[in-house]
Structure formats: structure tokens, C-alpha cells
């Protein structure tokens, strides 16, 4: 298939959304007058021991086999997942799972645990060791078609969301998501509310997924201790709850069972979950439900407001 990619017309700006200042937006409301739509997005991942090499990015920091880093990640599937899941069960929080699709084949027990809890499953690529960098259009389409087909076959769900594998994108990723009828992307971090995404055809929105509250970013990039993570989560919530009285907000906690599910870290997550779900005006929900609600009640208003803000 020829590569029909249209590169970003301005290489300095992906052009995926228009500037839309926070102040002056129409009021976004959530069901039952909630101020914050709160969702938890566990990443259930499989990292290959010896993946096909990608010319742009190495899968492992160390020479293969990177036993240390491979096994740190495998912990999530063997142990961390159920520990994390039990905490979420305790507070009635359903996960919206960002799934490396091959987990359906490798570890169907994990998929079953999610499906039996009525959790949402969406695609996070096939493996976290296969990157989109360098993919042509046919290859990127194959990832999406594989995601749609495999997840539906194993869960009965048609995927509504997408988080690019290991956050690797091409210039056409968003166009393709819209074309395949995917409702939302988790890959854009520019807002506290859902945003219409400019795509070639059809519609796509971005839902706040939050790098800042992501356990891996907090533990591995910022290298914060667990008790500090609990403080950060609560502070993030407090502000979004306060601002949400004026204009509805979204809070997401993106997780990795291999990080949050360690014994010395799980209490921090539980403390935050207890705190957040202890507030009345919170809509504890999933990515799909946020997207569907937004399309139904706010998408058109948002598009009109953005056009106005940009003098159209």
C-alpha cells in the first residue's frame, strides 16, 4: 500500500488541536452534577525479551537479555496486577485497561479478571517493545486492525480508546484512529478536559490521561518515594475538584501493575483512592463512558467555542 501520509504542515506544531484558552470555555458538566470525571487506567503490558529491533529506539537499556528490566516488568503480570485490582475492587473503581494486545494470547487469565469485573479494555499496541517509529501506513493499520480484532475476540468489546505503544506515534496516528472509529486517544497531555482532535475525516477526542500522575513517571522519571506519590495524587485531585465546580474536569491515574503493585507502593495508591472516592461530587467512571458522554453532550459546544476562539 502506498504511504499516503501527509506530514504535519508545520513541523513545529502537530496541528492536532487549536488553541482554546481555559477561561471562557462553555461549562462542561458531568452526570449527577459531578465536578470531576475520575478514571484509573492500568497498563497491562508485555515486554518481549528479544524483540525485533527498531532503528529509532532500543527496547532495553542493557544488552539483551536484560534480565533485570524484563523481570521487573513481568512482576506486574505475576503479582502486581491482582494486588492493584483488589485495591480497586475495594473502592468500587473499574479500570480502563491500556492493553498490549498480545497479553490476550500470553496471559488470558489477566484478561478474564478484567472482563469479569466489567472493566474497559482498549489498545496500547501489540507489545510494549514494538514501536510505531518508522511504520508505514499499512503497518500502522495492521496494528489497529489486530487490536480491534483480537480484543473483540477475547473480550467481546470493541475498543473505544488508544494509547500508542510505549507512547510512540507517527504523523498519521490520529487520522487512523478516527478512521477506524476509535472514540478517544490518551496520547495528548495538553488539557484537563476532553478535546476535539483535528483529524482528516470523522471525529476523535483526546481524554486527559496524565503523564504527571502516571506511576512510572512519578517513580522512574521524577523518582519520588511512594508516600510522596500519595500526596501528589491527592493534591492533583483537590485542585481538579475545586476547579471542577466552575467547569468540569477529568482526573486520570495511569498505572502499571509492575510499579504500583509492589508491596512498598500499594498503600500510597490505596490512600489516594480512598481519599478521592470519599468525595461526593466525583464521577468514578471509565474512558469509554467519559468519551461517550462528551460526544453526546459537549462535543458540538466545544467545536463551536474553539471556532469562535480562533476567529472562525
Amino acid at each position, binding site marked *: 500500500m502506498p504511504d499516503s501520509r501527509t506530514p504535519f504542515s508545520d513541523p513545529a506544531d502537530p496541528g492536532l488541536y487549536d488553541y482554546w484558552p481555559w477561561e471562557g470555555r462553555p461549562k462542561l458538566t458531568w452526570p449527577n452534577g459531578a465536578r470531576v470525571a475520575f478514571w484509573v487506567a492500568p497498563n497491562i503490558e508485555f515486554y518481549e525479551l528479544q524483540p525485533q529491533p527498531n532503528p529509532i529506539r532500543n527496547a532495553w537499556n542493557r544488552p539483551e537479555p536484560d534480565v533485570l528490566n524484563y*523481570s521487573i516488568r513481568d512482576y506486574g503480570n505475576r503479582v502486581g496486577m491482582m494486588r492493584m485490582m483488589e485495591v480497586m475492587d475495594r473502592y468500587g473503581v473499574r479500570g480502563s485497561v491500556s492493553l498490549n494486545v*498480545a497479553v490476550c494470547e500470553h496471559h488470558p487469565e489477566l484478561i478474564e479478571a478484567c472482563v469479569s469485573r466489567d472493566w474497559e479494555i482498549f489498545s496500547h499496541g501489540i507489545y510494549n517493545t514494538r514501536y510505531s517509529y518508522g511504520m508505514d501506513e499499512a503497518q500502522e493499520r495492521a496494528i489497529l486492525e489486530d487490536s480491534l480484532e483480537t480484543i473483540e475476540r477475547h473480550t467481546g468489546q470493541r475498543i473505544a480508546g488508544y494509547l500508542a505503544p510505549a507512547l510512540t506515534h507517527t504523523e498519521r496516528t490520529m487520522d487512523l484512529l478516527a478512521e477506524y472509529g476509535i472514540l478517544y486517544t490518551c496520547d495528548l497531555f495538553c488539557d484537563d478536559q476532553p478535546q476535539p482532535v483535528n483529524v482528516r475525516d470523522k471525529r476523535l477526542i483526546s481524554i486527559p490521561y496524565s503523564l504527571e500522575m502516571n506511576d512510572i513517571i512519578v517513580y522512574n522519571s521524577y523518582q519520588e518515594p511512594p508516600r510522596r506519590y500519595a500526596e501528589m495524587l491527592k493534591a492533583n485531585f483537590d485542585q481538579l475538584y475545586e476547579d471542577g465546580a466552575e467547569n468540569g474536569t477529568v482526573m486520570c491515574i495511569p498505572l502499571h501493575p509492575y510499579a504500583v503493585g509492589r508491596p512498598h507502593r500499594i498503600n500510597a495508591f490505596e490512600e489516594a483512592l480512598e481519599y478521592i472516592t470519599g468525595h461526593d461530587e466525583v464521577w468514578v467512571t471509565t474512558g469509554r463512558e467519559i468519551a461517550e458522554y462528551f460526544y453526546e453532550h459537549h462535543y458540538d459546544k466545544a467545536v463551536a467555542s474553539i471556532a469562535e476562539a480562533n476567529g472562525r
Partner: protein
Amino acid sequence: MTRQWPQLRKQTEGKAVTLPNSYMEYPSRRYGMDHQWYEWSMLQDRPEVSWPNNARVAIWVNVALEFFPLNQSSEPFKAPGGMVTAYPDLRHYTLRDYGNRVGVFRVFRLLDELGITPTVSFNSKVAERYPRLIAEVVQRDWEVMANGIDMGTIHHGGLAEDAETALIDESLTSLREISGQPVTGWLSPARSESMNTLDLLAARGVEYVGDWQNDDMPYAMSTNAGQLYSMPMSHELDDQTIQLQYQHSETSFAEQVEDAMTVVYNESSACNGRIVSLVIHPWMSGQPHRIRALRRALTNVMRYDSVWSASGSQILKAFQAG
């Protein structure tokens, strides 16, 4: 220390990169793991394990005695804690050697006082250079575990099999000879292995390795020379990981150990034992301002009813007995 992204080889900008169609093939996409070393299994689905006297949590403390050569190789990478400045890096060489001269005695005294039975991993160079340390361990009847030759000698995928065989033989032979113990536990320097490491270890009587970080409990591994076990020797609760790599305070280290213990203890029962593993580097925790945090962490762990402080081999034997 800000996280680096060494895996980014180069920017995409201006480069036309294409991927072969083999990039879209997944030869290992099937039930279970993508290698043959162990079976996929979730902790919750395993048989229950009982510890002696119906203890709920086995406390596995490891003291890591390491030698960082002044001319430490960076092939293929420098082990954590290694030399940093241009040669001669006297500053890091001596700071690490502090552990073997001073810190270790502070740590051993604390373990004696709290009645903790550690396992002590040795680079074989430490045993050869400082026989006093082997004597301290052997006279207490503590278990010696092998930790390769030194922290400048990394086992990795680029190492030829005969070269790695020689490294393993040297480490095991030396430690077995000097300690008079069978030495059946192995930790690779920087927890780095090649595709051959497990085969070579199993063929030489090693019964367990501490490199793998994917479980809270032991599990069987298969090699072409028979079975050995992975033992959960925590890298994430390691004093060096927390205080050097993550640069958390010594107070935070003690809190993290405390939090882990609370969680694991609550998950355990008299008929289903669990393990809390702690790795201590005397060059880190043996420093005067850190030893009290270690005391706090270990005191807290030992104050629980029904904990069992034991060596790697003791825990593995009890695990195998079910």
C-alpha cells in the same frame, strides 16, 4: 539523578526510517512466556506454602559485599555504584571500600543484636582480598552466596560462553574453597545475565539465583542442565536502589521497608507464608547517618509475631517441602 533515555538512538527528524515486514511478525505470541526459562503463573494460583513453626513471613536479609575495581570496566555498562570520575576515581573507590572496612561491622553488629540470620553475597574478589570477612560470616554460621568476581565483571549477552564459564568457575571455586561452604546461591553482578548464565550455574551445583525481580516467592526455572530456582531478592527495596539510584532519604528507605512489611504480612497467613527480602550494601547503609534508618527498618520487620529470619537455602528448602 534525572532519568536518561539511552535507548533513544537518534532523533527521527530528517531521517527516513522504514521497518521491514518482519517487524510485524510475532513468533513468540502464544500462551505463556516468550522464553523457556519458567512457566507463566500468577502468584494467587499457586499452592500454599508453610514455613517452620507456621511463621507467616520469612525475612530474607542479604548483605552484599562488593569490590569495585579502580579500573572498573564499562563493558557493557558500569554496575550501579561504580566508578564515576576520570581515572583514578579515588573518591568512589574508597567510598565503596568503606563498606568492607567499617560499614560491614556496623551492619553485622546490628544483625547480631536483632537476631537476624542474613545471607551474605560475596564478589569472590572480596573473599580473596579480605578473608577476615569470610571468617566473620562462617564463624556465625551464615550462608555465603556467590556474586560473581567483582563489580567490574558483568555477565551479559555479548560474552562468549567459554569466557563466561571461566568467570563462573573462578567465582564459585574461589568462594567454595575459602568459605568451606557448598555455595549454592548466586547473584550476578548488577543482576545481569547472558542467555547461558542459568545453564552454566545449574551445571555447577547452583540451586538458586537472585537476579530475577518478577515474583514475591521462589519459582522453578529450567535450564539445559536441570532445574534451579529464582529467589525473590528484592532490587526495588534494595538500599542502593532507593538511596543511590532514586536518591530517597534514609528515612524514606525505612518507611518503604515498613510499608512493604505491612502489606506482605497482611497478605500472609500461618498456612500460606510469604517472603520479605532486603538487600543491604554496607557502603550505603553502613554509613553513620544511615545505620539508624536501617536499625529502624529491621527492628520494625522483626517486631511482628511469627516472622522467620532465615538464609536463602533454608527458605528454599522450606518452600520445596511445601
